């Protein structure tokens, strides 16, 4: 597929003084995410980030060509940076006036995403660099996400070449675009792990050297051999979703969703209405699958014997507002109002911040899913000597008394389907509540709505 976008309007984005991407049009956001960036994180497209850095350093507007590359295609851009004076915090706007995509030459090659997934299963890491050995993407063993700090930096700034290999020989191989074999490297910072790198030069369709794809095998003589054997023997290790299949599935699913959304919003040009609607269905199904993958990862995590939660000092009122904020768009789609405690109120408790938020998002999300349009969801807080409590009450059909225990079981859907649920949310939420020394209960009657109450150990404010 060749994409050639003759856009009447430039693709726009905005970064702040620290290089954080504040806003971006969908095409730029998609590229940023595919380059290893995160929403609210630093701009991760190396050449664009470099242009922003130069523009800020000089205090000048630039107009330059830039290139980017992801698993699917290479993108040629013409970029104009504009400084936006705004007090002390100088922001920068990016206008990409030419955006042209062309596919990589993948004839006879194994799909790089598949290669990466196999690498993960085998306990290897993967690093992609551009022609100047700057890191475009990096996923190392035992790391769940991409190492965003390394993106855009030179490989030789992050790793030291370890003898008997020689620095000069590595540079020579790169200059001659030769494969790199058994190159031992040590991380410069952090845990200073040792890796053995194997690199394959990447040549694009135009015959131009586009960088390297490295695999990084941990080089720890005492443990790595044992671990590798154990993993290889099983093909898939015990922590199936948490560290292997989960991350491996999330990226292709993310791509499906992003591309389907691009098609459904007709960003690349006109499209028949029913096709746009099919694309919307694909995006919706993709999101459902992604939720399922996330739930299965959580399920695998909480069933591990070593699973623990942190005991953070949290405020349940604050968490309720955060959870409601995350679901505000979904609620307004159904004209549902979420009635929250006053923001100035406080209800201190003890529990892991992230996991408590996850439970509340699950409870309020379920309430939105099973409430009639135009109804109200009430979130209330209370406390006694031992526990702080937060309850979520909806105006849905309610749950019959005989079903109230079953809904906390794994994959229990009470015969419902097609509503985007996986049947794991409440099971996971109750397990998390127990792990934090609390509980999750339901009070309901058929036809009269439901109230789910999360209780967590109280924390007296000093």
């Amino acid at each position, binding site marked *: 597929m060749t994409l050639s976008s*003759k856009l009447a309007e430039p693709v726009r984005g905005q970064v702040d003084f620290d290089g954080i991407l504040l806003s971006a049009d969908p095409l730029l956001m998609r590229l940023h995410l595919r380059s290893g960036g995160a929403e609210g994180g630093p701009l991760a497209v190396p050449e664009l980030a470099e242009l922003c850095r*130069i523009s800020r350093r000089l*205090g000048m*507007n630039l*107009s330059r*060509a830039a290139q980017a590359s992801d698993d699917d295609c290479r993108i*040629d851009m013409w970029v104009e940076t504009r400084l936006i004076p705004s007090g002390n915090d100088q922001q920068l706007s990016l206008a990409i006036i030419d955006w*042209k995509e062309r596919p990589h030459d993948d004839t006879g090659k194994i799909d790089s995403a598949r290669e990466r997934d196999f690498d993960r299963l085998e306990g290897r890491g993967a690093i992609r660099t551009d022609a100047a050995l700057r890191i475009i993407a990096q996923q190392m063993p035992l790391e769940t996400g991409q190492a965003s700090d390394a993106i855009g930096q030179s490989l030789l700034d992050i790793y030291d070449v370890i003898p008997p290999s020689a620095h000069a020989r590595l540079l*020579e191989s790169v200059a001659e675009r030769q494969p790199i074999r058994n190159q031992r490297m040590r991380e410069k910072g952090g845990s200073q792990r040792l890796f053995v790198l194997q690199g394959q030069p990447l040549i694009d369709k135009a015959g131009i050297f586009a960088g390297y794809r490295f695999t990084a095998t941990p080089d720890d003589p005492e443990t790595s051999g044992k671990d590798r054997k154990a993993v290889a023997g099983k093909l898939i290790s015990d922590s199936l979703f948490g560290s292997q299949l989960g991350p491996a599935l999330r990226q292709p699913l993310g791509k499906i969703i992003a591309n389907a959304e691009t098609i459904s919003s007709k960003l690349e040009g006109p499209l028949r209405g029913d096709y746009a609607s099919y694309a919307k269905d694909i995006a919706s199904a993709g999101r459902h699958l992604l939720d399922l993958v996330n739930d299965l990862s959580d399920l695998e995590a909480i069933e591990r014997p070593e699973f623990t939660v942190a005991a953070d000092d949290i405020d349940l009122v604050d968490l309720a507002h955060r959870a409601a904020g995350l679901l505000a768009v979904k609620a307004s789609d159904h004209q549902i109002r979420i009635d929250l405690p006053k923001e100035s109120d406080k209800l201190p408790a003890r529990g892991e911040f992230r996991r408590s938020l996850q439970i509340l998002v699950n409870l309020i999300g379920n309430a939105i899913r099973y409430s009639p349009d135009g109804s109200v969801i009430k979130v209330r807080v209370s406390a006694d000597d031992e526990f702080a409590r937060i309850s979520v009450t909806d105006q849905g059909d309610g749950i019959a008394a005989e079903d109230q225990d079953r809904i906390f079981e794994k994959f229990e859907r009470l015969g419902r389907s097609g509503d985007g649920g996986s049947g794991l949310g409440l099971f996971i939420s109750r397990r998390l509540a127990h792990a934090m020394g609390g509980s999750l209960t339901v009070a309901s009657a058929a036809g009269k709505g439901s109230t789910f109450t999360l209780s967590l150990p109280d924390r007296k404010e000093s």
Partner: protein
Amino acid sequence: MAQRVFSMNETMNNDIIRHASALADKSSFIADDFAQALFPKTNVFFNDRMRSNARQYLRGVIGQIEQRICLIATQELGVTQDILVKIAAGGAGQSLNLLENSGLLKTVEIVQHLFVKAQQSELAARLLQKISQSDLEATLTRHLDHDDPVIAEAAMGLLVAQSKTTSAVGEISASLADLPAEIVYAFAWPVTASLARLSGLSSLQLQAATERFLASHDESASVARKADRLAQLIEQAKAAEDQVPHPMRDGLSLFIARLARQTGLASDQIVTFTAEPDMARLVVAMRAADFPVQEALSVFFALDDGDNILTAATYGETDRDRALALVTSWAAPRSFQDAQRVLADDSLGDRAK
């Protein structure tokens, strides 16, 4: 003591003393300059015209930057110092001499820029011996009717930019709008320091004026950037029947930008190659870009000053894979290439064993 020995008036006497002091300060560099002229590190030839052009260009650029900073300082920031008001009104700038004597203009970035500009002017003059100015100006018009409106619009942008910076044959147009951001930046701060010294004005006000000047500079209007963008669009849209780049079909700026685009090199590198003996690296770049023999010979002829010869046999025997490998290595970041050279030198001893 000296004043009494010579029967000169006070002013003249002071001038001689100042001059003598300046010479004394610089005397230690005379041998360096002579050594450079006597034992050059390269065999690239710089003629007097290039030197003179580069000097005129430098004077023009520094004068314009001085004037812009002074205009902002006086009109926007309310500075009233006489000397700055005079410069803002177009009076002769005074920074060049100060900066030259201080050595502040002798940075790699500035010198490289001056050399590329001078060489580009040489190439333009050579080209005009083979094609008329009007034919050369007509080269871009063929892109104005391009099927892709984006290309047509970019070609129009380049035409407009070129028309704004036209200078006499063999001269370099010192247009501020034509400078890349890094070069403006490299010039602007030494000029600011010089203005602060000359005027005795608080450097904070001049700094503010310079920051405003830098923020207002728009490199997107320059010929080089317009040519780069058009080259990018043409190369993306390239159809099978499209011809390879040629200075007599594309004009000099677009030819350089297209060859740079095809080889992954910078435009400045391509210009530098044309100054080197036998234009050997230009030949290798054309071979890497897979120019057909006749086209390569024609380009070589168009850009050569008549001293060099390229034969079909020589070009045909140049191995394309090796040419590609070489061009790839030249396209690597400069500091990477420098490091490679140092490491290669270090390992020479090992190889010799």
